């Protein structure tokens, strides 16, 4: 599996994503500077977390118009897997590759902590190594993770089995208290219609190494690896 990690000015989880990818897949991903219009030939593209362009104007807004994003879109249209984590999710929504928008957290504060997610679908190459309904522990670290879309869009996401993860409690219930940021319908991650683009606010790359306190994020990378085995 060949992977690339996009680096924007202000990206800061690019190295973390690369480290996790290398740890799980055994292969260093290529780091691609946003100013390059051309993408290397890869199977997986990670749009990493951070504060691209300082999150000024709106999180992800300026990065979404960076030269490299046209290539990322074109690659996704050809079926290349694109995974947007945190700021990467914000970039993908701003670029129109995923529906909806990520607004300021309900409590207006930045939140960094482990949250519990319920795996809503295993019908994707990102989530196939989990079981449906499984509760996993993954950290969030964001200020703008409050997922919003029109009710019709949310209904469509649900009817097409495109919600990948929802915030939940230990029993798997998607309660208001388990929702860290006010996201509609507790949505933490979604897929595009073709199911090859995933955006999620939590950081699976941060819990892929047992030394860091857990490995619930690792199956995301294992699943991708298996897809190319």
């Amino acid at each position, binding site marked *: 599996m060949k992977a690339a990690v996009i680096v924007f000015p202000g990206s800061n989880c690019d190295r973390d994503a690369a480290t996790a990818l290398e740890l799980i897949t055994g292969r260093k991903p290529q780091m691609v500077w946003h100013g390059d219009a051309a993408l290397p030939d890869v199977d997986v593209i990670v749009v990493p977390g951070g*504060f691209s362009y300082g*999150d*000024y104007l709106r999180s992800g807004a300026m990065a979404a118009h960076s030269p490299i994003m046209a290539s990322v879109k074109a690659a996704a249209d050809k079926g290349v897997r694109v995974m947007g984590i945190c700021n990467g999710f914000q970039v993908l929504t701003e670029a129109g590759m995923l529906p909806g928008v990520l607004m300021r957290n309900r409590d207006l504060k*930045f939140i960094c902590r482990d949250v519990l997610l319920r795996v809503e679908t295993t019908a994707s190459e990102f989530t196939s190594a989990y079981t449906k309904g499984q509760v996993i522990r993954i950290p969030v*670290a964001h200020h703008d993770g409050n997922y919003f879309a029109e009710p019709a869009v949310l209904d469509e996401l649900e009817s097409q089995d495109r919600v990948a993860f929802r915030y939940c409690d230990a029993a798997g219930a998607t309660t208001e208290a388990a929702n860290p940021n006010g996201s509609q319908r507790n949505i933490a991650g979604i897929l595009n219609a073709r199911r090859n683009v995933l955006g999620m606010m939590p950081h699976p790359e941060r819990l892929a190494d047992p030394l860091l306190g857990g490995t619930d994020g690792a199956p995301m990378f294992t699943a991708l690896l298996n897809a190319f085995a």
Partner: protein
Amino acid sequence: MNQTVAITPQIVAEHGLSPSEYDRVLAILGRVPNLTELGIFSVMWSEHCSYKSSKKWLKTLPTRAPWVICGPGENAGVIDIGDGQAAIFKMESHNHPSFIEPYQGAATGVGGILRDVFTMGARPVANLNALRFGSADHPKTRHLVAGVVAGVGGYGNCVGVPTVGGEVQFHPCYNGNNLVNAMTIGIADTDKIFYSKASGVGNQVVYVGSKTGRDGIHGATMASAEFSEDSEEKRPTVQVGDPFTEKLLIEACLELMATDVIVAIQDMGAAGLTSSSFEMASKGGLGVELDLDMVPVRETAMTAYEIMLSESQERMLMVIEPGKEDIAKAVFDKWELDFAVIGTLTDTGRMVLKKDGAVVADLPIDPLAEAAPEYDRPWTPGVKHPVIAASDVAEKPWAEALKALVGGPDGSSRRWVWEQYDHMVMGDTVQRPGGDAAVIRIHGTAKGLAATSDCNPRYVGADAVEGGRQAVAEAWRNLTAVGATPLAITDNMNFGNPQRPEIMGQFVEACQGMGEACIALDFPVVSGNVSLYNETNGQGILPTPTIGGVGLMPHVEASVGIAFTGTGQALIAIGAEGSWLGRSLYLDVVCGRDEGAPPPVDLKVERRNGDFVRGLIREGLVESCHDLSEGGLLVAVAEMAMASGIGANLTVSGPDLHAKLFGEDQARYVLAVAEGKAAEVLANAEKMGVPARRIGSTTGSDLVVNGEAVAVAELKAAHEGWFPAFMA
């Protein structure tokens, strides 16, 4: 000279120069300075830049050890951590700016300390911060807490450096002067460390980073003046931080540092272009000529005075060899940062500033630096307080006392604070906030760095010698408790007005105590910062020498946290039984008495007990470990229980049960060890002459003392509940 403002005594006074200091200015120049020159003298001789009141005593602190590569005097301290790597770190205050504009004050404090570290060639890998606010019921406190915490997070999160530890305290002495002490640790290769000493006549002086505006003019002088009620009027001088530019600046500088282009580099911190250019030239024994028309500015019609004194953030000054500008410029162009050659190094020993083709300042560098005032301020020793016997302290039911301690402003969880900080970015955080010390993996290695920040101002206020010793000892103990070898400290000396002999006495005595502890524990000072005049309307803060400690572990996976890891483990207390309630949290919170002498620190015992505990951790005999500090044994055990949800059953017999449970005697730890290893640990302790005793086991979900139980969940609700309720 094109500046015709007449230099009146009033203008001199507004620049914070005393009449005798101004006489010295006249003597050095042999003429009356113009306004720009006066401004330069003013900032260079401010307390903040010159350490004029503190230098005499700071010099007494031990700064050497075989592993110290660079001690105080550079942008940050450097220690050898093996395998060709160095840890570079420093703590710095941004107290006054944070009081006036808490968000930006705290944010730019973080930005400034980050630059101190990456300017030396290190990639910043961890931030810590020590925050002290007025009493929780003071009307301004919540606003300040909210702003400072958001500012620390807003900057650190965006830059992508994890904020892994720190401390938050409340005390009425900080009502008018909160403390914001920020610390950064970076990692560099020992053969790629950059210093600020300029060299090479004819070399280019290069400005990089953000453009210069009118921000923070006179910030350095402000940080050296007492507050009065009208200080809110100083608001316009507060700088605004741009963490996005800082992130680009980090990447650009590190990219350029990988080449051989940079001769010297210095960040523009307090006093901006003035102190950076001055210090670089002064250290190199050279002169410097700057063309201020070349300085990138973002506002129109900026004067030489404003350009030299601006404290706009995210700027650096470098010296590079002629002919290498293109290499450097290409890097900064890539990162879309300003880059300008603004001058050259000369052999004149003078700083010559030009603007619009005319010389606007011409100052001798060495005389100005050497003649910087240095005061031996009068001081009086602190008044010693009587030792309070445990039998003279009311004994309250332990459960009630414990709930008050862990659920009050001082002892409650700081989760509300550190969850606003990204403490996991960079993917190396092994021990997250909330324990004794944070532990990060050194990226790409099996090694770990531990870091902590500590001070108990109530101890220091009661006895500055003992309190100074204790602050250093506690930092050492916290590093030990995670399994690290403590290597060095950075000190952030926050005090009141040094022109008052009793305040100067606190400073002198704290230095004495700290120095003793540093020597006894092989724990030298490698960097630091002094913040004086933390005083409003004559009310000074408690003396607060914040200690930032750094330790090393060869195998980071051997580190332990405070959370119990299972039931059925033996709990072993290391060190003497609790007896000392003077200045304890129990006496203060439960009995309402902030009295007596603080607990004495026996540095030999400290070292012996700590070395023993670290050895056990390294041998893998310890499941979890917590040092005993505020609140003593029972608070420590409760914190271990609350962090895990696992209970404990303790047997601690009286008399003076309150002192045994809540006494704050020093050099103590509590360990959880596998039941099967308990005998071995106790036997080892005996062999080493370390007091150790079995006090109970981990079990169930209640904390039980002598048969009486409190649910851990109930304690946790109180512990976790206080801060969110306070801020709601």
